Structure formats: structure tokens, C-alpha cells
């Protein structure tokens, strides 16, 4: 069946090949570059961004080569409100957000998809490395590039309107195919960092938005070990940048309390948690389990998977890990999998160590 497909084209190699594949499959494809910054930078500076003028030109050129119409959609207002401001306020609340996930949830598969459907499109096609299987999301065959973690927040309705042509091949294959198709972006470097922080200095960006107030670094007993220059520069599990001196090395950030601007540190063992409560669950791969369901959970992007039992209780997701995990930060997503199929996703709100487990361990 020929679908009217809107291909979101970032100017990178993945979305260019995805659009080419959709067009080759016989769909009626239109390329759209999302302008996400009000004042796009003219040139790349250091770390790669997503919305430079140069990226827009690369996307346009790829669309020319594929032979599809191309437009730029201005999504800067939505992006600033739903992704950038959300990012800042999450950090201000002591949580560690994932802006790529938020962009998929609120921009690519919400604002863009809504507009596309209203304008007569059937689907939004992206270059994400993920597969669709029976209406559910499945990990890419390329483990290292798999992006199911940042897409697991999509509802079944959103997945139904999504097209992911790249899930069945590796990044190396995508690059080779781009080269074969004459797409100049074949050798373009991967983007890794947060697109709206072009220089990669997240702490500096947050300081600029939130200001930086020095505050105490304390241990679990409350004893002051040192001073920090702004609590939002820290993430749970972080060890570097504490500057506590040799006597108290091997300390990790355990928690960040923005209200009293305090960073609590402790030994690595104290990071271990095995019970997680997460908010706003989205179940795209199964019905919300009322009883504990044996599955696996991933707790950060490119993180390992942990065997667990998970169920929904009073609208929240409860996850009990079989073995404790470390570096679990509030604000990140807990994504449940059955093998390589996504079951659901929720935002981590609380973490703890079960008393009996702690006593036994």
C-alpha cells in the first residue's frame, strides 16, 4: 500500500537513508527538516548539533538526490517549551532528564506527527535504529546503535503512525548504502551530544539558565566534606568533578537535593538500589501488569539490562531488580523489555534498597 510519508530529515546519514528506503518502497515521501533553534548557528562548532544551517542544507541536498520534495518546518517554539525548558526544570528539581526521549515523545511523534496527519500524511518516517514488530517496538539488530530506549515512551497509537526503515541493519550498512546511493552525508560523523548544547558543556549551559550557587557536599551522616559550585552539575553515580581531595576519594554522588542545594556522596556500595518506582508509565508492548511480571529493565541510554519483576500499582510502575544496580538516576526512563521487545516505559521517581536485601547483603 502506498502511504503518504513525512520523512523527518536531520541532515544526518540515518534519516537520509531512511527517507530513501521509504521512497524506494513506493511510498509518496516528503522530506522535512525540523528547525529547532530560533537562531541556528551557521557552522558546526566542535560537538555536532542537530539544527545548524549546514544540517538543513545537508538534508535538502539528500532530498534532492532521493528526488523528493523538501521543506523546513519551524518547531523552535515547541522544542524550546517541551524539550529545552523541560530539560532545565528537570535538572533544577535534582533529576537527570533525557532530552532525546522527550523530543521523540513531544516533538517528532507528537507535534510533528499531529501536524503531518492533519495535513494528510499517513506516517512519520525517521532514521532511528529500532524495529517495529506487530505494532510493538523491537531493538535494532545493531546493538550498539539501538534507540529503542529513547522511543519506548511512544504509545501504540504513535507507533502505528511511525515508520522505522533502518531497524534491520547496522550503522555500517547504513553508511555503505548512503555511499551507494550517492548521498554526500555518508561520511558525516554521528551526533552524540545534546543538540541544543553545541559545545557539549552541559554544566555551563545549566549554569547560564539556572545560575550557580555554591553549596555543601555532605556524606550520608550529614558531615560536610567540601563545596560544590552548583548542584545541577551533578548526576547520581557521578564520581569525577567532586574535588574532595585524596582523603575522601572513591566517593560517588548519591543524591542531589535542589531545595537545600546539597549534594550527598558516599561509597559505591551505597549507590546500589533494587527497588524503583517510576511515574507516567506508557505500555505499548503489553497490558499494564497487575501482578509482578518477570522481564528485564534498562535504566539509562546504552545501559545494561537487569532481570526484574515489574507491575503497575496505583498508576505507577514498580520494578524489583533481581540484583542491585548502581547509578540509577531520577528523571531517567525505566524501560521494560521482553527479550528485545519493548513492553513499556516510565520515568524514574524514587529508588531504594529493600531492607531485607540490605540486611542480608
Amino acid at each position: 500500500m502506498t502511504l503518504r510519508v513525512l520523512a523527518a530529515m536531520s541532515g544526518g546519514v540515518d534519516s537520509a537513508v531512511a527517507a530513501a528506503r521509504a521512497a524506494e518502497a513506493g511510498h509518496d515521501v516528503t522530506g522535512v527538516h525540523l528547525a529547532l533553534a530560533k537562531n541556528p548557528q551557521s557552522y558546526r562548532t566542535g560537538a555536532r548539533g542537530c539544527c545548524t544551517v549546514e544540517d538543513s542544507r545537508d538534508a535538502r541536498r539528500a532530498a534532492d538526490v532521493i528526488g523528493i520534495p523538501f521543506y523546513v518546518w519551524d518547531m523552535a517554539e515547541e522544542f524550546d517549551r517541551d524539550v529545552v525548558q523541560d530539560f532545565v526544570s528537570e535538572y533544577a528539581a535534582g533529576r537527570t532528564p533525557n532530552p532525546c526521549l522527550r523530543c521523540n515523545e513531544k516533538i517528532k511523534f507528537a507535534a510533528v506527527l499531529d501536524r503531518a496527519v492533519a495535513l494528510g500524511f499517513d506516517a512519520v518516517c525517521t532514521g532511528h535504529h529500532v524495529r517495529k514488530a506487530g505494532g510493538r517496538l523491537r531493538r535494532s539488530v545493531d546493538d550498539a546503535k539501538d534507540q529503542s530506549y529513547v522511543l519506548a515512551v511512544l504509545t501504540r497509537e504513535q507507533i502505528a503512525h511511525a515508520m522505522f526503515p533502518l531497524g534491520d541493519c547496522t550503522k555500517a550498512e547504513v553508511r555503505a548504502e548512503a555511499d551507494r546511493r550517492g548521498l554526500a552525508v555518508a561520511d558525516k560523523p554521528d551526533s552524540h551530544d545534546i543538540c541544543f548544547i553545541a559545545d557539549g558543556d552541559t554544566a555551563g549551559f545549566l549554569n547560564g539558565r539556572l545560575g550557580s550557587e555554591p553549596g555543601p557536599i555532605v556524606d550520608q551522616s550529614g558531615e560536610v566534606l567540601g563545596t560544590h559550585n552548583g548542584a545541577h552539575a551533578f548526576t547520581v553515580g557521578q564520581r569525577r568533578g567532586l574535588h574532595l581531595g585524596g582523603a575522601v576519594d572513591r566517593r560517588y554522588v548519591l543524591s542531589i537535593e535542589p531545595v537545600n542545594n546539597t549534594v550527598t556522596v558516599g561509597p559505591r556500595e551505597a549507590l546500589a538500589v533494587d527497588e524503583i518506582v517510576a511515574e507516567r508509565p506508557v505500555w505499548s508492548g503489553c497490558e499494564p501488569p497487575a501482578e509482578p511480571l518477570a522481564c528485564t529493565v534498562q535504566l539509562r541510554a546504552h545501559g545494561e539490562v537487569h532481570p526484574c519483576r515489574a507491575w503497575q500499582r496505583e498508576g505507577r510502575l514498580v520494578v524489583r531488580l533481581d540484583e542491585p544496580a548502581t547509578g540509577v538516576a531520577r528523571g531517567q526512563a525505566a524501560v521494560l523489555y521482553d527479550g528485545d521487545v519493548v513492553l513499556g516505559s516510565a520515568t524514574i521517581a524514587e529508588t531504594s534498597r529493600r531492607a531485607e536485601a540490605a540486611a542480608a547483603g
Partner: protein
Amino acid sequence: MVYLDHAATTPVRPEVVADMTAEFGELGNASSLHGAGRRARRVVEEAREAVAASLGATPNEVVFTGGGTEADNLAVKGLYWARHGADPARRRILVSAVEHHAVLDPARWMADHQGAVYEELPVDAGGRVDPAALRAAIERDPADVALVSVMWANNEVGTVQPVPELAAVAREYAIPFHTDAVQAVGVLDLDFAASGVSAMTVTGHKIGGPVGAGALLLARGVDPVPVLHGGGQEREVRSGTLMTPLLRGFGTAVRLAAAERTAHAAELAGLRDELVAAVRRAVPDVRLNGHPTDRLPGIAHLSFPGCEGDALLMLLDARGIACSTGSACSAGVAQPSHVLLAMGADPETANGSLRFSLGRGSGQADVKALAEAVGPAVERARAARARRR
């Protein structure tokens, strides 16, 4: 294709293609002293005479440029430098708020980098500059005005300015007056000498000539400081090897445009009125922008309440209909038109507007195709706009 974007560029006329094709086969630099050079020089000078005769100028008033943007830059920067150099008190650049970016941006750049003072002349709801407003602006300090620039006709909404009256005001104070007449050639009665302007920008590709050839007409005694320095080919004001084939095509295009002007303008105006009426039948609340009477015959600029112009453009493009939302920024994002904002429109109305522009080859079939496509497109675009928070 239903091409309704002639104000962006219009097909090159077959006569022009023939002339340029012949000329591309010839050899010679118009500045060379030998036979081949003299032959090229003759072609260039014949083109110059054609442009001058068609526009009410003398041949030595025609300075060829690479197009409208270059001519506008030469006028704004060059006249500022000349006037400021003669008297450092002259720092103000008065431009209408609805100028093309080729005038606005050089003027703003001069303010940001060269110590000029940038001042916009307001326009009324129809987009016109009142000569009294120009007089009031000059009167605030007649001694500090370096130049005035007001376009002959607006490229977005098509409003025609009272250029002779405005030029007369500037002349009273002996201030040079530049006008960008790029959209006026071939449809309005342009007489450089009679208009009283000091400098006038024209270009080839809006009238069936090639892209890359234009001219700045400069009245005797108006001597801008050069922007391009080099061989001094054009009156020492503009350097660069004369592009003989393009200039030959440009000369032919200007000559034909002037000769056919009256009939062509009447034909366009009739078709434009049909287009507006047809769109209004499909979309009753559509609004026609620009001046009700003093307007270009080939431009219909319409606001579609509740729509985003870029969505409408895409939907029409998908049906093979080409139109324009106005000026796009470098990343390709449509910004609210400064022209509509200056005319008092709110940003949402400005964003929900499209320009349809007619030219040679436009006909009833184009109007019919637009009339059929515009209703459903507006409906879709409205639905999309409504879903946006």
C-alpha cells in the same frame, strides 16, 4: 506545473535565449582594444542604449551590475560613503519599512559597522509611504540625511509608491533619492529622467532576461563610492569584466518589456482580478493585502485566516502549484513578513499569507487549477493549525 511565482523569477524569453546563445558563441572582452574586444564592446553599448532608451535614461547613466542586490548595495553603501565623505554630519539613511532585504540589510549593516544612523519611514495599511512622512523625517535635521531609499513597487504585496512625489521632497533638500524598481519594469510607466530620482535599480530576471545581469541608473552628478574595486569598467563605479552575453540578453529583455508594457500590464491585471475572485469563492474570508488601487498588476498577496502559509504552500506544491510565502531566512524557516508587519498586520496573519504572482505565460488554466486546489488545502492547513498549541 502551475507557476504562480513570477515575482521570484520568470521564464527567460525565447528572443533573449536566442540572443544570448548567439553571443555565448562569440569571443571578446569588452575592455580589450583589439577587434574582438571592439565587437564585444559594441554589443555591450547597444544593450546599454536599449536599457537607457526603454527607461528614460541616457546611456551614460546606466551602470551595469550583476543584478538587483548588487545595484541596491552600490546605491545604499556607495551613496552613503560619498555623502558622508563630503560632509561627516550626514549619517542618516532613510528607508521605507517595506524595502527588500537588498536595501534593508545594507542600510542596517552600515549602521552596525560604519557609524550610519538607520531610520525607517513608516507606511500606511496599504504599504505606502506618505510624502509628508518623508518630509517630517528629513525636517528633523535636513543636514544629517545621507540618502533616502524607497522602492518603486513592493515585491511582496505589490504596492506602488508615489516615487516622483517622494523624490521631489528629497530634491528640495538636495538629498540623493534611490529607488529599487526591480518589480516595476515592464508593468509600470518608468521614466528615470521624469521621475526625478537620483538612482534606480533594475534587473533582468524578473522580465524574461537572464539571472546575473542588472543595472543601477545613476543621474549625472550622482557618484557613489565603489563597492567593487578593480578594473573600473563601469564608469569607475563598478569593476568586473562585462558579461557580454548576459548584457545582450538583458538589453533585449528590457527593450521588449518596455515595448509591450501597456498591453501586458492590462492583461495581468485582468487575470489577477480573476484569480482573487476565484480564491475568494473557494475561501470567502480570504483577505487581499496591499494598496487597493496603487498596486502591481501581477501580484495578489492573500491572507488566509487560521492557516500557516508554509503548510498551505506545501499542500499547493504537492498539487503542482508554485507560489511563495515571502522571504525565507537562511535555514529556510519562514519568518513573519516585515512588509506585512510594517503595514500593521499581526504576526499570525503575516504567517498565514501567500503571494501569487503572474507573468508571461500565465493564463486562465492557472487560475482554474488554483481555484480547485485552494479550498481543500486551506481546510487541511486550518486543521493542522488548530492542533498546534
